[in-house]
């Protein structure tokens, strides 16, 4: 299925939840959706016989000047097509439902996105830091992140 067909089909099913489709030469096609019903959208993408997106290749956060974005890269092994979903969250309260029960891959990827960007994934089974120490402060991949000068009283050399 092409990105446009996927977009049209999602649009007919979810209406206003699906915001826009961007398909141009500079980007891979991506669909921006609202965060409220992301799990339902993902379940349809996984289980609908026309989509069959059974494989989550990647999940990551993005820090844009106006919002924090979660990017889902999905792939279908039986049908060999790809789609990118994006969910835009406001910076004051960045939270979105976890898709861990749809694809287990999301478990560690969401922990990493939480660790690096401070995005809260609701109903995640074990949302703790994964790459930085458990008592680390701040979220390093945010653009406004300030490197701490000491850690446990030890000066950090850069």
């Amino acid at each position, binding site marked *: 299925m092409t990105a446009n067909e996927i977009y049209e089909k999602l649009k007919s099913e979810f209406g206003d939840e699906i915001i826009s489709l961007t398909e141009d030469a500079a*980007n*891979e096609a991506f669909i921006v959706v609202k965060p409220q019903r992301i799990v339902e959208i993902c379940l349809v993408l996984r289980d609908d016989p026309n989509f069959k997106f059974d494989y989550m*290749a990647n999940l990551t956060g*993005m820090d844009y000047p106006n919002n924090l974005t979660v990017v889902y890269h999905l792939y279908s092994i039986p049908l060999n097509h790809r789609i990118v979903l994006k969910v835009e969250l406001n910076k004051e309260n960045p939270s979105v439902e976890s898709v861990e029960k749809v694809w287990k891959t999301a*478990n560690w990827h969401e922990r990493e996105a939480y660790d690096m960007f401070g995005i809260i994934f609701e109903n995640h089974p074990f949302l703790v830091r994964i790459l930085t120490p458990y008592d680390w402060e701040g979220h390093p*991949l945010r653009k406004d992140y300030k490197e701490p000068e000491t850690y446990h009283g030890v000066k950090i050399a850069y």
Partner: protein
Amino acid sequence: MTEKRIIDVDYSQVDTERMRINMGPQHPSTHGVLRLEVEVDGEIVTDVVPHIGYLHRCFEKACEKMSYPQVIPFIDRMDYIASMNNELPYVVGMEKLMGINVPDRIQLIRMAFAELNRIANHQLAVATFGLDAGAFTPFLYLFRDREMILNLFEKASGGRLLYNYFWIGGLMHDVPPTFKQECLNIISTVRKTNEEVMNLLIGNSIFIERTINVGILPADVAVNFGVSGPVLRGSGLNYDLRRSEPYLLYDKFDFDVVVGKGEMGTLGDCWDRNIVRMREMEESCKIIEQIIANFPDESSDVRALVPRRVKPPKGEIYSKAENPKGELGFYIVSDGTVNPYRMRARATSFVNLSVLPEISKGYMIADLIMILGSLDIVLGEIDR
């Protein structure tokens, strides 16, 4: 003569206590600085919690302050066993973003080096997996042969493990004049040793007993966890990015995608994952043979298309390639300046390790080591 007594013990009635023990971070069997928090009931593993991040060096954050060509040496240090393969999706993605079409000769060189590096990676994976099972001799044989591949890489790039050889738009240097002959030598040696290793290790009954019916990973669970590479193919699923979404010139080459068949035990056990790696070496040899047969004799300027200033237009791309360990992806977001706005590495081993708690419950502690070895992880890539 005393009468033989049969002591009948109902083991389900024996009182055991669950305890949590730490394996690592400095443990020889964990293949790096990985800490496994294992909950055991007697000798049976009931839960595993991997703690990672001991090698974390903020790859993604550091890239935001680098120019695009500076990122390549940093990528080498992710999966330091297969650095050539690491560079591949990045340079291919950047070329797509900038609209550079690389000539066939350079693509052939890239493919040859990627496949050689795949052989080197699988040699190391099989060797250390054998070591986990207690087999020392195959380890020495395989490392001896791996040296030949590293020597060729050294002649081409100057580095033995970290190459910085694939550049955006070309290569660092042309291949050495002895390239063709050395490739053929490597192939014949690899085939000879692999035959030996098949007899010595893979068909060894001790090894078979240790690896069959251990760490069974069904295909649907594997897909749901997003694992890729030999771990996924060991579960019998035919998924290889070189076939499903061909990059470079892979669509013009003849090779088979190796899948596990459950020959010795159950489909998707440790033995299957290992045999996929053994057989993939032969497929890589086949690809290299075809490359050598089609390789143009006249040399060309491999830096002709390397841009002076790498400044891609605004846009984003998810570029992926089939690494020896699985799908390695780079999500590159460019804002039109000389530094990437965001560089995301979808590390193969990171995803492959996440399946460990799922497949190691109910086995012995000694089996946990085998399962971990069969996943073939590199901590440099997991922690980034």
